């Protein structure tokens, strides 16, 4: 195999596609400003019957699930120590870091009193699933920043060259980076394991969240094994996210896709989806919740789309030898798993929530959709900025450049 090391991608930042993303992001920012100036009611369609909308369902719940690539690849690369997969660790770490930052941001704009966001740190309610999710996400976000620090150090040690009034900072900052880097290289395993533990905890507790809503939640989704289903689906979507991003980045930056590596990763996805499917079907049979499919109403249709498009079809594709043959099969199967988990989180938090006295159903407002799309665009833009400016993506080592990674 070619010798590859993580390095900055040499590519210009702006392209027509990037400008479209900037416009979508700016549109979202306008509505975020509206939310902070005039309150949640001015921008969202939330009401006394529907307290949670797509900001919780997509930005927070789906955001956490889709950032699972970070802990899955850390587990494969660092804990199982599969060296062949090292090149996926950094891109997945970057996605997780940015993903969780945006999850925290999503919570920040959704809670009524954003300036009290620190309250859970000092006011504890160990009975609350939300408290546990909150605390784990806060700690994990910090763990992710720490895990990313060596990449920053690698980029800037010996290369800090600020001009003008900041010139005096060059030396102390360089020193600080060196101290942090050498300290972290000895202790990083602590954070890596902590990251995997924290992820397992809050990915599952996110599933516990809606259990307390009891019969307000549609029986196709409400089950005491929700935490387990959330954990398995997060594990299942981790690798498809890594594959999806890698192929998208390759396309956007006109790089050669790492096909053999990605298709080997894809081999794990089918069995995990199979485990998920068997738990889900087993639960439906035991609790006889499948009778709720009969009316063929909106929840039933959404449930079938989620299960067939998001689980069954990609599972079949991943289990057949097709995926190891073509990039586009791999891409589409991964996209379907991502779509399935995204839809599952929306279904759990929005569609399944049956407001007992609602006069009309909740439909997200233009403002809510704008903010969600804007945040996603901003995340992609930041990802692009980071891979252009930091050594994240592994590329063939140019001749004459020694591997500074070791």
């Amino acid at each position, binding site marked *: 195999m070619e010798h590859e090391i993580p390095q900055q991608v040499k590519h210009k930042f702006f392209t027509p596609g990037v400008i479209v993303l900037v416009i979508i992001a700016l549109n979202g920012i306008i509505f975020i400003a509206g939310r902070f100036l005039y309150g949640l009611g001015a921008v969202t369609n939330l009401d*006394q019957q529907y307290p949670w909308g797509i900001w919780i369902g997509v930005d927070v719940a789906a955001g956490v699930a889709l950032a699972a690539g970070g802990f899955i690849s850390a587990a494969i690369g660092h804990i199982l120590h599969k060296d062949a997969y090292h090149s996926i660790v950094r891109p997945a770490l970057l996605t997780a870091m940015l993903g969780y930052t945006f999850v925290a941001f999503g919570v920040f704009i959704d*809670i009524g009193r954003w300036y*009290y966001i620190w309250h859970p740190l000092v006011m504890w309610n160990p009975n609350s699933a939300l408290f546990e999710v909150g605390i784990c996400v806060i700690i994990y976000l910090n763990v992710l920043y720490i895990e990313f620090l060596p990449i920053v150090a690698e980029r800037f040690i010996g290369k800090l060259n600020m001009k003008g009034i900041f010139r005096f900072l060059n030396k102390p900052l360089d020193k600080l980076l060196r101290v942090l880097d050498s300290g972290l290289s000895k202790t990083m*395993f602590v954070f890596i394991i902590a990251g995997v533990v924290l992820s397992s905890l809050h990915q599952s507790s996110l599933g516990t969240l809606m259990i307390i809503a009891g019969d307000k939640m549609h029986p196709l989704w409400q089950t005491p094994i929700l935490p387990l289903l959330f954990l398995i689906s997060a594990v299942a979507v981790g690798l498809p996210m890594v594959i999806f991003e890698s192929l998208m980045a390759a396309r956007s930056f006109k790089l050669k896709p790492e096909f053999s590596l990605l298709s080997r990763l894809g081999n794990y996805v089918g069995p995990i989806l199979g485990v998920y499917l068997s738990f889900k079907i087993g639960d439906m049979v035991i609790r006889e919740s499948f009778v709720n499919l009969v009316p063929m109403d909106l929840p039933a249709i959404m449930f079938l789309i989620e299960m067939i498009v998001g689980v069954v079809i990609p599972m079949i594709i991943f289990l057949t030898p097709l995926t190891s043959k073509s990039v586009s099969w791999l891409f589409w199967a991964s996209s379907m798993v991502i779509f399935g988990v995204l839809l599952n989180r929306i279904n759990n938090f929005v569609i399944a*929530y049956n407001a007992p006295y609602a006069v009309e159903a909740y439909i997200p407002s233009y403002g809510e959709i704008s903010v969600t799309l804007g945040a996603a665009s901003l995340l992609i833009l930041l990802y692009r900025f980071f891979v252009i400016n930091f050594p994240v993506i592994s590329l063939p080592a140019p001749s004459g450049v020694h591997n500074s990674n070791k």
Partner: protein
Amino acid sequence: MVDKNRRNFFKTSALLGTVALGASSTAKAAPENILSDDRKGVLVDTTHCIGCRSCEWACQTAHDLPADNIHDYHDREVFKEFRRPSNDSYTVVNEFENPNNELLPINVKYQCMHCDRPACVSACIVGAFTKKEDGSVVWNTDMCIGCRYCMVACPFQVPTFDYHKAIQPDIHKCDFCYTRTQEGKLPACVEICPVEALVYGPRTEIIRVARHRIKRTPKKYIDHIYGEDEVGGTSWVYLSGVDFQTLKFPKHGTNTAPGVSESIQHGLFAYFVPPIALYAWLGGIMWVSKRKNAKQVKEEKI
């Protein structure tokens, strides 16, 4: 790098364990959640209620909410629309057609049920809700972060939120007139009710009264005290001559609302054992796989 790491591994693991234990020992207890034997309750007899809505006016006045003139409340036009408690009215009276006698409509007062095992107390991320000794479930404005998880959790969909306040939006719900009852007064709605549709007293007493009424006039009531066992029991209980679902009460079993959620939560975190065990297990795998890897590298070199 690998060899150096191994010694550090144990050192740091030990440190981390100490930190985790320290954190668990300083963990504060769950929010105050008292289930006193002397807790108070209210019996709402929907067969007595005449729909005068005086209780609504008294509630508005007692909670410094816009109240206007009490005479305006006797206008029965509002009954055309089904109303729910909101962020500017903590109790509302609705009217339903009486299937047994169309000349005698049924009026039903709604407010927080003050559950014995409240979902909001269990759910609140910062523990801003408490169940007090007198049975009331009250909310603390100094703690709330406005996440609205209480609204998701409540089996009766009672808490409401100030969606149009940019700064310091509150959660609103009936507080069982906690400040008034502490001063020895009756809850405002109970005090004003002209037909004794509301009876305030120790919960065990009012259940006894309710059961007595059903026994004395079995034709007038259905044999069900709503709230006696629903979601583990509520401080407010109801009597009715018709099925409670026709009065738009949610059909609930006797399981408490936070039961399943809390057992899962406590199972996952029993004395921090499962997370620490997972940590140790992953650490073990990492150590073994690193050693295997180092060996392989050595062999390759030879």
